[in-house]
């Protein structure tokens, strides 16, 4: 079969192109490592700056608890609360706790306020750190309550510490379960779009595309000859990434695999279509890679992969609807973490289907047109 000859040739070329092999093998490894570990890093010895304006027994106890919790180091003690931001700025602390004057009396009265400043330029560490600290402080409040209940049982219900977290620099706080499934989408996008467009452009550069055009091959055969091999490479990558996500990172899989695979398949089609489109507007391999890069950048930034969409300005939020990765991420995160089904996810699935049809059709049409 003629298609078979095309596919065999494509795999032979793929095997011999070091850049392509490195891309297919390394992209998932790098992304999983970076995103998995940047997100998963256990919080240890996180530097905390403290400004204790209260200087009471209660505030001292709170600071001691923080210092002995195992996650934090009290790295600096500021005398003025205004200095805390400077400490964060200089990187001497990642979290800063301000205990205001009157903390002890208010706490014993049942309600106290402290302020936590977070340097979230490393969002994940900061988020997890802030979360732990939050828990610690709440626990402290609860213990004070318990003591008070014991000493004065008639007292009305508990003292609480109202922790006011103000996040600086980077308003997002994500966790590993949230990040890692997204790698599936990103790997697909990088591998498929790049490999497809590069292999078409490579043939155009060598003149073999024209040579193949004078054979009886039909345009659709030629196109499938380009799409099938890289769909297979992407599938192998996907299977590996999926295994790592489930077995290594132990991301829970709450929903249905069938739904997950359907979403993967639709997203794979959008990537293949994009790759074809890129190949038709690029003359050289460098151009193809630049073009792919310019597609990937907004995909990473605007899809909700790194920053939640609801935190973006409204006009920017509108542009995210044009990014297929956005829908894919929603589906995969919801399926894996929440166990959502078609009932909740049909708008995203419909959007993915529409993008898949649209991009593959546009890619095929312009590929055909470029050939003629």
């Amino acid at each position, binding site marked *: 079969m*003629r298609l078979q*000859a095309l596919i065999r040739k494509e795999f032979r070329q793929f095997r011999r192109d070091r850049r392509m092999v490195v891309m297919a093998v390394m992209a998932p490894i790098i992304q999983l490592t970076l995103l998995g570990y940047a997100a998963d890093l256990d919080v240890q010895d996180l530097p905390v700056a403290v400004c204790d304006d209260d200087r009471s027994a209660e505030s001292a106890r709170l600071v001691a608890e923080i210092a002995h919790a195992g996650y934090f180091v009290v790295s600096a003690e500021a005398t003025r609360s205004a200095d805390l931001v400077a400490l964060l700025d200089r990187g001497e602390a990642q979290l800063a706790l301000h205990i205001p004057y009157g903390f002890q009396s208010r706490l014993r009265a049942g309600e106290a306020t402290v302020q936590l400043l977070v340097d979230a330029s490393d969002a994940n560490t900061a988020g997890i750190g802030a979360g732990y600290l939050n828990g610690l402080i709440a626990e402290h409040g609860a213990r004070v309550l318990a003591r008070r209940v014991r000493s004065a049982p008639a007292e009305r219900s508990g003292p609480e510490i109202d922790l006011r977290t103000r996040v600086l620099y980077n308003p997002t706080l994500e966790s590993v379960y949230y990040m890692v499934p997204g790698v599936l989408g990103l790997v697909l996008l990088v591998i498929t779009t790049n490999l497809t467009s590069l292999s078409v452009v490579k043939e155009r550069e*060598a*003149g*073999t595309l*024209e*040579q193949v055009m004078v054979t*009886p091959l039909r345009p659709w055969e030629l196109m499938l000859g380009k799409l099938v091999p890289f769909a297979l490479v992407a599938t192998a990558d996907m299977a590996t990434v999926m295994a790592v996500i489930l077995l290594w990172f132990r991301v829970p899989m709450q929903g249905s695999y069938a739904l997950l695979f359907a979403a993967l398949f639709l997203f794979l089609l959008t990537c293949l279509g994009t790759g074809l489109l890129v190949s038709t507007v690029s003359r050289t391999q460098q151009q193809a890679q630049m073009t792919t890069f310019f597609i990937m950048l907004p995909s990473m930034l605007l899809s909700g992969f790194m920053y939640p969409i609801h935190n973006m300005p409204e006009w920017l939020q509108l542009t995210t609807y044009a990014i297929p990765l956005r829908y894919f991420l929603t589906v995969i995160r919801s399926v894996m973490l929440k166990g959502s089904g078609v009932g909740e996810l049909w708008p995203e699935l419909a959007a993915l289907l529409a993008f898949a049809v649209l991009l593959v059709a546009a890619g095929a049409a312009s590929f055909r047109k470029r050939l003629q």
Partner: protein
Amino acid sequence: MSEPAVIAEGLVRRFGAFTAVDHLSFEIPRGRIFGFLGPNGSGKSTTIRMLCGLLLPTEGDARVCGASVRCEPERVRGQIGYMSQQFSLYPDLTVSENLEFYGGVYGITGPRLGRRQDELLDRLELGRERGRLAAELSTGVRQRLALACALIHEPPVLFLDEPTSGVDPGARRRFFELIQDLSAQGVTTLVTTHVMDEAEHCNRLLLIHRGRRVAEGSPAAVKALVPGRLMQVRAEPAMRAADVLEAAPEVLEVSLFGTALHVRLREDIPEPDAFVRTRLLAAGLEVGQIEAARPTLEHAFLALAADSEAEAPS
């Protein structure tokens, strides 16, 4: 008589306002080698690309093995072998993998593919290179491999677009011997070139300039079309001699040919040798041997192209 293998009827191809091919008509009988001659940019490649079905004619049509390039390009494609100027091979595939791929694309598989591969590797002296990557091959070997790929499906018609560019003279001659062998077996070949000595290997030539036909005929007939009488003149200094002769109204053309000059004189000069000698001596130049020369295709081309330019409306 069977129908000619290739019939072009009023082929026109325009790119915007530019007319690359301007009403070309010709016929190539089966088994013949047809040379397509012209300088770079004269429309040779565009014509071949139309004949291969890669490019749609703006006007006119052509039939290749009875199939119209306009209406049934896919039927044309099965009948032709095409070799482009750049020897379009997969640089990252080996010699035999390239052959295997092109064979597969033409639907040739299994034992037939193996047999065909061995035949071509043997015939084109590629057997020792079969395991090497195409990227590592010398230009001459790549040229033969490109030809082998174009021949894998035994096409009755072969289109060769400047098949010898960048190849040394020995390899060039061997290449044309191969083409002549194929011709003896009934393969029809259309070959473009701007090298005149290659054109001598063709049965018939078509000279084109700016997309138009300038002349057509056998190499001898085309040469006979050169007007005037050609002399080979040795004189010192040659450049000065050329200037002196060019200034004379009886001289149609002067060109440098190695260290000698080729001078084309009007037919009606009674004693051309004496005419040239007198002129040069009068200018105070040293004159050596003067003899009649046989016009080459190079002269034909220069003369005919100049004529056509003079005729063409600018």
